[in-house]
């Protein structure tokens, strides 16, 4: 402890109301004249504000942060959410601060990771009652989860852990085994979505550690490895930041979302839905975005034809995150093997878009035929009342949607008889 810290600690420990008055008396100074940069309306903006949008909706263009306290169940505006005819959306669980990626355990537990608050949750149903348990705390951005053979895999920023036999030990999770710590420690785009593929390998992305830069050889990629962390290899490059992927139930090909760069313009570039058809493919970052847009900084002398093009564009700055193929039977036939994609919602755009769940319908050859809205209503008056992060197909065919803004999970079901009315 430094001397300064010691003094401060003592001060904090011992301060009484009596000393406060003395401190504030010492604090009184003549008010300094307001400095020049707070310019009046008739003056030109100071040089540091050039290019900053002046309309009110743009007065703050910053990453949107969820409150660090989950929204109370009775304050969550489920009635604002809309789903297609015949579907119903209901609040399924609340109080899960910063709820992000979801995975289903063999015994029906829904596991939920977080990006900002260090927690992992388990949602269990016991005697018809749903209960949220905080099973892990103090982890470093435990955003990514996978589940296999009774074990929960948790991806921190740079380490992956395995908790064996977790569903029988939710109240007292076992000591985890380290799967791998062979990942960079960069904070930007360092949080991870993970998944275990049909090849029984663990897939782990490493994002580009910046908005837009030339990635080191270790970044802007997706890797896979054996479930014990051995045999790590890079399977995709030029991936800026994927926070959601899944495998086609029939072709077993990997599909993944990827977030485009910020600050080019309001409408460029779009986020991508990509398909890996060959190990080692390059998806463009940072040279080409959205398949046809050469980057203004790194695109010189390059061509977008050098790179694999996306199978679909998901809108500028929409932050397309979690996605799953629909393998259930509850929804109408047209949704079978379609992809549900959670779009977190734009921050780097004055008019907010995304903040919804869309569904991508596929052709027989694996290309995308159309993308339609599915769950909407999270944007009210150009701001968010919730932000979808991940989707999860339940055993009964209903679809869960996590919301890291409200700290909640919604359930979407089809057909009146299946709905558990609130």
């Amino acid at each position: 402890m430094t001397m300064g810290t010691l003094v401060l600690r003592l001060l904090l420990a011992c301060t009484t109301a009596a000393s406060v008055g003395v401190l504030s008396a010492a604090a009184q100074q003549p008010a300094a004249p307001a400095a020049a940069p707070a310019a009046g309306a008739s003056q030109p903006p100071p040089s540091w504000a050039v290019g900053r949008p002046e309309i009110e909706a743009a007065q703050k263009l910053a990453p949107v942060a969820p409150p660090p306290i989950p929204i109370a169940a009775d304050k969550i505006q489920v009635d604002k959410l809309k789903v297609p005819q015949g579907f119903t959306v209901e609040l399924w669980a609340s109080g899960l601060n910063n709820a992000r990626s979801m995975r289903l355990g063999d015994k029906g537990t829904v596991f939920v990771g977080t990006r900002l608050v260090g927690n992992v949750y388990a949602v269990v149903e016991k005697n018809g009652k749903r209960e949220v348990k905080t099973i892990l705390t103090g982890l470093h951005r435990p955003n990514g989860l996978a589940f296999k053979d009774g074990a929960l895999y948790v991806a921190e920023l740079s380490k992956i852990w395995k908790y064996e036999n977790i569903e029988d030990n939710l109240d007292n999770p076992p000591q985890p085994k380290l799967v791998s710590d062979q990942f960079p420690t960069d904070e930007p785009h360092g949080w991870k979505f993970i998944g275990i593929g049909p090849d029984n390998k663990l897939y782990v992305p490493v994002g580009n550690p910046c908005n837009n830069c030339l990635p080191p050889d270790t970044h802007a990629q997706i890797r896979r490895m054996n479930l014990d962390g051995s045999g790590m290899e890079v399977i995709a490059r030029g991936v800026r930041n994927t926070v959601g992927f899944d495998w086609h139930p029939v072709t077993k090909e990997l599909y993944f979302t990827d977030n485009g760069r910020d600050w080019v313009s309001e409408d460029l570039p779009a986020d991508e839905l990509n398909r890996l058809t060959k190990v080692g493919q390059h998806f463009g970052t940072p040279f080409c975005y959205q398949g046809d847009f050469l980057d203004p900084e790194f695109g010189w002398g390059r061509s977008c034809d050098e790179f694999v093009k996306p199978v679909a564009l998901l809108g500028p700055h929409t932050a397309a995150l979690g996605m799953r193929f629909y393998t259930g039977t509850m929804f109408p036939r047209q949704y079978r093997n379609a992809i549900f994609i959670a779009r977190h919602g734009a921050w780097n755009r004055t008019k907010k878009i995304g903040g919804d769940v869309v569904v991508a319908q596929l052709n027989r050859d694996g290309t995308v035929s159309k993308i339609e809205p599915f769950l909407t209503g999270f944007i009210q008056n150009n701001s968010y009342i919730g932000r979808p992060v991940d989707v999860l197909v339940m055993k009964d065919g209903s679809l869960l949607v996590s919301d890291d803004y409200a700290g909640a999970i919604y359930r979407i079901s089809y057909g009146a008889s299946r709905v558990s009315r609130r």
Partner: protein
Amino acid sequence: MGRLGIPILALALALAGAGASFAQTFEERLSQCLACHGERGQSEIPEVPSLGGQPAMYVLIELFMFRQNLRTAPPMNDMTAGLSDADLQKFADAIAKLPPPQPAEGADPARMARAQALVQQHRCAFCHNNFAGADNVPRLAAQREDYLLKALREYKAGTRREYQPVMAEVMAALKDEDLVDLAHFLAHVGAP
């Protein structure tokens, strides 16, 4: 007396009052916060930030980070230990009502000019709302220069954990001399 004199004086007075009953009410606990951070929103203690004019949500986020030990700053981790979510919200709301601090005097024109170029290049004013802050983004205008430099250096070194990792990326492109100029600039600007 200079800057060092104030904490020593305060410490002496605080120790003199050490026999007083342990603060229990919200107002008494808040006055403990303000003893260091400044009763009128303006800190007089080196490397202790002024809290005046900070957005309630930003204050809430930092209090939460301290309580969860996600951000390490020993006095604050101790001060927030055991507080409920509702407590954190109440402190955040009260602190957000403090008046904004006043810019320091005696700006160095050359350093201000260098910093302005950096501010434009890195779009500081976009997120920081012309330095008044908003929602989750802190007010920077008229913050203490020594605290700003400490915070910027901690972001650069990766020793200050962020709620959302945003500053880590901005810092990658900045040199220490840039941070010195930026801290000087921000301490000397006003904001609405």
